[in-house]
């Protein structure tokens, strides 16, 4: 028995897994906190949202599917806020940008 919607759901989950792997690689390879924060926040948020969406396609609009929609909305709202708070905290606690950076307006304005 081959169900087309289930296969589309598995394709979404596979795309999400690939983005998760790229996010974690960025966490390892990039040189300083801010670049790592960029790669990790974008890739892992979209990857997990894609996994949850594939799960919604597979289980349909049951209790678990509705909860997956709520989880997607919640992740999209909170993950950038957490990244923003972490970036500001890192800059205030004195973490410097890496050597290849070209400009730092935030430091110039005396914060």
């Amino acid at each position, binding site marked *: 028995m081959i169900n087309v919607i289930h296969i589309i759901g598995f394709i979404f989950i596979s795309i999400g897994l690939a983005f998760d792997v790229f996010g974690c690689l960025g966490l390892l390879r990039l040189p300083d906190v801010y670049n790592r924060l960029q790669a990790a926040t974008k*890739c892992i948020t979209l990857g997990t949202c894609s996994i949850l969406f594939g799960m919604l396609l597979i289980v349909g609009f049951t209790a678990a599917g509705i909860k997956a929609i709520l989880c997607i909305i919640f992740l999209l709202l909170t993950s950038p806020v957490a990244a923003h708070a972490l970036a500001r905290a890192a800059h205030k606690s004195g973490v410097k940008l890496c050597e290849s950076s070209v400009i730092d307006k935030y430091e110039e304005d005396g914060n």
Partner: protein
Amino acid sequence: MKSRMILFVLAFVVWALLNWIPDWQHLVVGVFVAALVAYLTGDMFVQRPHLFKHVERYLWFLYYIPIFIWEMLKANIDVAYRVAHPSLPIKPGIVKVKTSLKSDTGLTFLANSITLTPGTLSVDIDREKGYIYVHWIDVKDKDVKGATERIAYRFERILTRIFE
């Protein structure tokens, strides 16, 4: 009072979705819980409740969602390319972006959109002067005006119509 009503409706809808498929026992408990939440935190949720009546704001919000998802996809492919490239083609820096939004919700949505779109991450907001400090992974324009046009303009155009 109006703000509390809106929060009550929102909390009740979320409760009903969490207990899908709702029966009457869950709904009765949900009325009490939503009333408690609305009584405790109603004041801080919405400052200007009259804005919820305008229909065209919802339509602009629906128009905003596909643009946002498209930008997110582009951002992810961009980051994946930069990470997988052997020589790490990055040129990071923090630039300043001018914004004309004033309300809290508008600024929050603008900062979130900047964070989830290609190559940018909002670091801090200076509300009195209307600046947002943005960490940019590939700096193309160092002055305020050019950076604003490249980063914030496409969202600000829509968000002004939704939240102001």
